[in-house]
């Protein structure tokens, strides 16, 4: 966080907002690609894999940055259940950011598919081919994707609740750098 103890650092905000864009794009690419037979299926699939790996790497960077830079404390007057929900949902968000790409990668491995990203970057298989594992991982990747989407929506709703209703500085702490709320007086 910044020296005033109320904001995430510029690096943290940049990671947050760029990953937000990537993750939201992934939901739409994911449901779009599995429901189409159009030519766009091929680039959508390649983008989904490439972006997934990018999110995985960024999530690890983000955790390291978080460990180093910390986070502003939640408002002291935030009710305990909301604090708990805030903490748990963030464990969920970080967990899924890391788990979803790994599940997808493992699923392709278990399906004996080569994992090739844009730029002809080839990733090794992380599991041997196995039909039962493929099915298990496919289901996990699919169901958790919808859980992840619901969690992101909850996160957005909570952020807006802080910004519009409570007006307690929680949103401003992560607001895009240079925005009005980011420069809110205190």
């Amino acid at each position, binding site marked *: 966080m910044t020296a005033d103890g109320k904001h995430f650092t510029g690096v943290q905000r940049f990671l947050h907002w760029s990953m937000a864009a990537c993750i939201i794009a992934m939901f739409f690419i994911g449901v779009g690609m599995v*429901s189409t037979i159009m030519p766009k*299926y091929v680039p959508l699939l390649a983008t989904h894999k490439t972006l997934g790996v990018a999110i995985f790497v960024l999530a690890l960077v983000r955790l390291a940055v978080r460990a180093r830079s910390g986070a502003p404390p939640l408002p002291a007057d935030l009710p305990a259940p909301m604090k708990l929900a805030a903490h748990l949902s963030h464990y969920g968000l970080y967990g899924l950011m890391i788990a979803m790409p790994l599940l997808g990668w493992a699923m392709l491995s278990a399906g004996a598919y080569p994992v090739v990203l844009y730029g002809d970057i*080839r990733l090794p298989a992380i599991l041997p081919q196995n039909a039962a594992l493929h099915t298990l991982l496919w289901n996990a990747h699919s169901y958790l994707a919808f859980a992840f989407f619901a969690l992101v929506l909850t996160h957005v709703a909570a952020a807006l609740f802080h910004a519009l209703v409570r007006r307690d500085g929680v949103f401003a702490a992560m607001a895009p750098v240079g925005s009005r709320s980011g420069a809110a007086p205190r």
Partner: protein
Amino acid sequence: MPLPPSGPRSTLASLALIAAICAGATGALAYTAGWLSPDRLTPTKLVDALAPPKGPVPGYRRNHAKGLCFTGVFEANGNGAALSRARAFETGRHPVLGRFNLGTPDPGAPDATVRVRGLGLQITADDGAVWRTAMINAPVFPVSSPEAFYALLRVPTSKAPNAMAAFVAAHPEFAPFGAWAKSPDWTASYAQEPYNSLNAFLFTNASGAEQAVRWSFRPQAQAERITPGDLAKRGEAYLEREITERVAAGPQRWSLILTVAEPGDPTADPSRAWPEGRRSVEAGILVVERIAPEADGPCRDVNFDPTILPDGIRVSDDPFPAARSAAYARSYDLRTAEAKDYPRSAAEAPR
């Protein structure tokens, strides 16, 4: 804290705004997923339409369900490198895995009832790049678009009188395939068939030049012509027995011929052959060395998705590889989830 908490009226407005944003995002996702578009041609619909009248046979591929595995090598002679920088074209022996198959959703279909024979192939280059392809013996594809293919699959379930005649009238491109399918001029072995990509792919060579290419594996075995009637007399699964014995007696070979499009050739339409006399390059020899039954074989759980391509080959404006990839993935997801219905031991496999 910069501002006081909002008053009750503006709180209500804020909550309404938040609800609207969440509902809007959910609606956008539902739209993207096709849940609001019942007419969208999805991989699920395409694969469901392949099912035989009694329903799909669980555990098996949803099409080209009857088949068996092989392993061998692709002996590249280096000529293909003029067209593509894929390592598979560099002189050398590249390991292959493949599958001979019949174009039917029924793994128990008698050989003589299936005109279309196929070859699924995976070539792995020494740098690890994988090239998969699934080809058939027909010289052209029946139709020019995936939508038309879906319509063709639905003809047998149509209640309309003369549905096939109506389909052919609406899809004149069907004629060349129809004539080929009707000809009684079959062969007596998987080893005697040519296998054609039909789809065009873009090949990029080391200097970056790009050209549309279709390819064929042409058999070195002499064709023994046979009518379907005579083939039927040899038994329902004659082809599998024959290729097993033939390969046990000696490796079987096909030449890989790459055919290069000229400007104006129909690269996006696999129902139209390219004119004779197009430049072609013989890129090497496929050698099939060992046959294995599918139930325990190395090809069983491999999806011969035609968009799994090495650097140096990519999809063209032909819409079929993408549609096939989407449908093959659906078929793969279904059958791998049904693995218990297709026992691994060949002896127990239902036939």
